[in-house]
């Protein structure tokens, strides 16, 4: 890949490049520094990341997505030419959408939800790595402080993004069973948006970088942007791959997720308990009164279940002979309650114990 765009050597740096040479030099920066080359992306696209590592990526990348319109607004604020602004503002519309539920940020939220996150947790940005925030904010500051040419040139990583997106979508769909086409909807739009944006920005840079110095600035701006992206992956790799050093406040696996993501559905092979089943405690599981603590406990392999009064009442009747319906009838008589309502409740409880393999039928 490197051979296609030979890097301009230092001796060349004072020479004015033709527009096509400039484009080649810019493309060369991408060929060497774009984050598609980062080890974290290799792992991501090859299906070598765990679900939690994919989650960490989705969560952190959200911050970048959410700040892109802020960045583009800063660029927009520096444009004195209405025709330029009309073009550039499309980027903000793409990301923010025209109404709630629309736009690129929303689609990224869908992706984050698709891998199991609670929407509010993602929106809060609480678990995002500081290094991610620093990188993204550096980008926003850069476009606000540098020249308009540099601000526009820094967006040119979009020239390289169609490749990474197609690789990513194909790789993720193939390698992760928790990723669906819907989850990745964000990238569908970007496949057409990014080249359109990049074409404009590239033309602008080629037209306006009219001195060796301006050309150097444009190249440096693109290098800076590649580093903004690269650094974010460095931070992800360091925290979630190796050495796996997660900073104190950053997201840790098992948090910020919706309940279903934490507790997957019951295995297909195991059927739920029904009213006719006759539950029993197998050998090695015993209901015992704990005199020291003045309560009943269920003793089981390597663990003790604390029981509430209702559970104790049920388990006292679990004998391998009575059916669930019969237990419910008996409790209904004792407590003057509707046995069918009791039955529904105790089926849930008994299923829970069966799932933990301390109850059989």
């Amino acid at each position, binding site marked *: 890949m490197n051979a296609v765009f030979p890097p301009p050597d230092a001796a060349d740096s004072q020479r004015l490049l033709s527009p096509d040479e400039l484009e080649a030099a810019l493309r060369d920066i991408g060929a060497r520094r774009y984050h598609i080359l980062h080890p974290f992306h290799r792992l991501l696209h090859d299906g070598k990341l*765990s679900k939690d590592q994919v989650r960490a990526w989705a969560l952190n990348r959200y911050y970048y997505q959410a700040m892109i319109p802020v960045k583009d607004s800063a660029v927009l604020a520096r444009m004195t030419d209405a025709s330029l602004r009309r073009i550039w503002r499309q980027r903000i519309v793409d990301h923010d959408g025209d109404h709630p539920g629309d736009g690129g940020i929303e689609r990224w939220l869908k992706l984050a939800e698709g891998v199991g996150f609670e929407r509010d947790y993602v929106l809060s940005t609480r678990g995002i790595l500081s290094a991610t925030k620093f990188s993204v904010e550096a980008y926003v500051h850069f476009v606000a402080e540098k020249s308009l040419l540099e601000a526009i040139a820094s967006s040119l990583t979009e020239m390289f993004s169609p490749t990474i997106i197609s690789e990513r979508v194909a790789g993720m769909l193939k390698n992760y069973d928790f990723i669906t086409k819907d989850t990745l909807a964000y990238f569908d739009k970007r496949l057409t948006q990014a080249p359109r944006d990049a074409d404009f920005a590239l033309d602008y840079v080629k037209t306006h970088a009219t001195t060796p110095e301006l050309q150097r600035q444009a190249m440096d701006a693109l290098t800076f942007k590649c580093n903004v992206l690269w650094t974010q992956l460095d931070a992800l790799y360091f925290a979630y791959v190796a050495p796996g050093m997660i900073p104190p406040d950053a997201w840790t696996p098992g948090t910020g997720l919706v309940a279903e993501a934490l507790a*997957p559905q019951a295995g297909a092979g*195991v059927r739920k308990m029904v009213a006719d089943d006759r539950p029993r405690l197998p050998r090695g599981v015993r209901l015992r009164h704990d005199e020291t603590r003045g309560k009943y406990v269920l*003793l089981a392999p390597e663990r003790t279940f604390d029981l509430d009064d209702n559970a104790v009442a049920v388990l006292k009747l679990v004998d391998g002979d009575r059916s669930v319906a019969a237990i419910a009838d008996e409790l209904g008589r004792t407590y003057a309650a509707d046995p069918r309502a009791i039955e529904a409740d105790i089926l849930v409880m008994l299923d829970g114990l069966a799932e933990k393999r301390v109850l059989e039928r």
Partner: protein
Amino acid sequence: MNALTPNRPDVPAPVGLLAELTHRCPLRCPYCSNPLELDRRSGELDTATWQRVLTEASGLGVLHVHLSGGEPTARNDIVEITKTCADLGLYSNLITSGVGGALSKLQALYDVGLDHVQLSVQGVDAQNAERIGGLKNAQPQKFEFAAKVVELGLPLTLNSVIHRGNIHEVEGFIDLAVKMGAKRLEVAHTQYYGWAYVNRAALMPDKTQVDASIRIVEAARERLKGQLVIDLVVPDYYAKYPKACAGGWGRKLMNVTPQGKVLPCHAAETIPGLEFWHVTEHSLGEIWRDSPAFTAYRGTDWMQEPCRSCDRREKDWGGCRCQALALAGDAAATDPACSLSPLHAKVRALAVEEAAETPPDYIYRTIGSNVRSPFKEDVNS
């Protein structure tokens, strides 16, 4: 609330007793949690003393008794001791290698009311397993033992201690547990105390392997829900927060050694200056409540920063004291497994470094060895 507390509400009643009946064992696993200096048979407690200890434990509120070792079935009185547990209503858990005399005693153990069997498996591939356990022909004996446990209708847990020598077999352990008819599987990444500490460089897996093993377990849990319960113990060195060692020092568990010393955890003897009391000299209740070893790190008064003001201090109780000593040089320090410890990064780097090296040979567990921990000051030096 219980017999202990009229004047000591700060002392909770114990729930578990780890009875290390003997240090004798036919296996020589290089990660054994027993101390480097193993007790000899001549010094072991007699049957009557164990029965008294169990009776006292029951009176204190203990619910679970883990009959362990060494290999507990190496004791001739294992059946009598198990019967005492059953008579007292104590839940008996036999933690066994399944080799040696284990199989021949199983029926009798079942008959007197044994509640549960936890069988260790060192590997899935027999050759690998026997290299790790240091005993030829162990694997077929284990399989035969497991089959008998299940045939009797006893609940079976398979325990696999995971390290770099078998981390590639995690999927295999899961299949094996299903095939054997086990109800539970423990995928327990090595905890680096005792012999495992000495062999740490030979055992430490790298982070990518650890993560892959966790991913495999997560997928299997989903797939096997209601069929096999899988408990996962993740490795400390790669963790964010430490484990509450033994559920908190002097809060839930106690450990009686073959010679009758009572420890707050099985590695506590590595901490110099702690005074342990003997069941031959004190009642178990006195020891639990008042012995210097138990009071040393019970509760939170002993803590330093960052533990002292941490809102997790009553969740993990500062982590493991033995690990704090080994890695930080101070048993009252924050466990360096905790990301809040100033030494955490060094410990993590150490693990990464060791995992990247070619593993040295195992130093096999053996009675009467002169092995000294080579890692005494590796972090602080």
